[in-house]
């Protein structure tokens, strides 16, 4: 089960400059773990010490904010698009 993750600028140093990566995972949590395997260190950027998404990271599955879904437990399926966006825009 492969999903596409859009990588924001602040994380591209960890992904060797790639702005899109393809990873496996049937939940957002699994996707984050799978990202960590490919790009060590990325999980700590996304999640705090308690393993929760950081306050200033917004994650979207197919355009929907995961806080309106099931957070890190949100189910993901083949072909889903995941966006990671710094929560410091707008207004």
């Amino acid at each position, binding site marked *: 089960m492969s999903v596409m993750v859009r990588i*924001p600028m602040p994380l591209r140093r960890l992904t060797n400059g790639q702005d899109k990566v393809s990873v496996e995972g049937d939940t957002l949590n699994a996707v984050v773990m799978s990202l960590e395997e490919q790009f060590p260190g990325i999980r700590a950027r996304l999640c705090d010490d308690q393993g929760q998404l950081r306050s200033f990271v917004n994650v979207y599955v197919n355009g929907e904010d995961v806080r309106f879904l099931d957070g890190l437990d949100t189910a993901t399926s083949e072909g889903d698009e995941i966006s990671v966006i710094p*929560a410091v825009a707008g207004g």
Partner: protein
Amino acid sequence: MSHVTALRCRECGNEYEIEPTNACELCFGPLEVSYDYDAIAKNISREKIRQGPATMWRYHDFLPVDPETAVDLGTGFTPLLKADNLGRRLGLDKLYIKNDAANPTNSFKDRPVTVTVSKALEFEFDVLACPSTGNLMGSVAAHGAKAGMKTVVFYPADLERGKIIQAAAYGPTLVAVDGTYDQINRLCSELADNNRWAFVNINMRAFYAEGSKTLGHEVAEQLGWKAPDHCIVPGASGELHTKIWKGLEEMAQVGLIDTPTTRMHLAQAEGCAPIVNAFEQGLNRVEPVRPDTIARSLAIGNPAAGHYALQVLAKTGGTADAVPEESIVEGVRLLAETEGIFTEPAGGVVISGLRRLAERGVIGPDEVTVAFITGNGLKTQEVMEHAVDPVLSGPDYESFETAFAGREL
């Protein structure tokens, strides 16, 4: 400009060079401009500010741009009006309206935008862009025109017509998006990463946010170098609330005013009140909502600075209140009928919120109170259509008398 030291993460404190970037690489926290306040204190005085231009650039020492290179349409130093009529209605003897709709493009957005566009030129951007709830795109398009830059503005397709038409007049590329502001914000965040465009409120946000501080500076100067007892500020991203407070605080830091004891109140519309929700539940993290309000300029369900607005509320003893949707237009009319100022629904939220604070006794009759009006009613005429009920008369005397019979002035 010489007083700027770095960009600093508001969360973890990590520092960055002065560059067009808005998020910390370590924790994603927002970056903020840091200043050498000791150097500012040595260089600034009330007299020097008084001799400056009658615009917000009189406070350039607190801004991250050289005033000589500023792209300036004459923004700021807007009227602070003693609102005796409205004050009498509400039982407040020292009420003031800061009418920031009196800016060149009729909203407070000219303050952050003039700073950002000046900075964008310094970074050698050719394209200026923004996601907008309406007021921002007019300001960006106007400043882009003045700066000779190309502009691209993104807005919800169902936005009020007046805001779209105003922006269109300045000649930008308009992108009408079938989606909410929050969705547009996400789209633009992704675009900002892959295009060399200066998105004023995304990659340029650290500089942009600084412009709003001048509202705090001005109010203090206009009150005779004193901070007010209460401020009532509309809440969208929450940034304006935090930056008015920062403006007051830094004036005290350099010795221009005494330490402020201002209570910073925030007003949102019931149909989009994520910051108020968090405040009422005692949370320090804002959960997003799906906006459904006529106050379109406040319709941000995922407020970027909500967390910091909560901090300012806590620190200053401010309150956060969500006003009922049906009271918003009442607020617009109350301000228009008492003070002769026609504001947009966001201003109706502020006036309605002010009335509720006065009724609850949060504001004492003798306390100096400033309500911030940040947008002009001419851009949102739809909401006032129902007030148009003219006497229908012919051009002759008798026709008028017949038509006017029974009407009271």
